[in-house]
């Protein structure tokens, strides 16, 4: 690269820059995934607390813990069901009427 003698800094895709680019993309991807997971955890916490801990006492009772365990599984399942329904609908809307959603 340097034997071209050019002083123009933005060099063509050197291996170094390719690696930098890929690192950046991976970082963005993992941060998005982390945010996604955090959102799901926060929502689950909010929903399951509302459903299962009706009257907070000095500690979580075993029936509250039981409810929380079920609730966690059901909320994740609901997320999967909704996710599938939404992407199916999205695909359908795009096929039939590109401008409507």
């Amino acid at each position, binding site marked *: 690269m340097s034997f071209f003698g050019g002083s123009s*800094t*933005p*060099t*063509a*895709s050197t291996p170094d*820059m*390719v690696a*930098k*680019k890929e690192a*950046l*993309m991976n970082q*963005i*991807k993992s941060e*998005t995934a982390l*945010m*996604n997971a955090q*959102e*799901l955890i926060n*929502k689950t916490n909010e*929903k*399951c607390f509302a*459903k*299962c801990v009706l009257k907070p006492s000095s500690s979580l009772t075993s029936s509250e813990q039981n*409810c929380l365990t*079920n*609730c966690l*599984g*059901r*909320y994740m*399942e*609901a*997320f999967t*069901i*909704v*996710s599938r*329904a*939404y*992407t199916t*609908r*999205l695909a359908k809307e795009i096929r039939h009427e590109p401008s*409507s*959603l």
Partner: protein
Amino acid sequence: MADKFDEASQKELSKFLENEQAQARVQSTIHQLTSTCWDKCITGTPASSFSKSERGCLENCVDRFLDTSLFLINKIQEQRDASFSG
């Protein structure tokens, strides 16, 4: 500092970002829909599996929510058009 991306890489990165942002918007909508549909469909204490009606409700909830949105947009448009011509 020579750590500036060349034009092709910049283009690729902005395309990538656009894509990631679109995906994030879809994800965020799914979180919102899950929350809305959970409140609507899961009325009892969560059990070890969904009942038939809970599952059916969740499956329909997304489509009906979006239908509602389209329906209301149409109504509002109709009302706007009527008030323009009237």
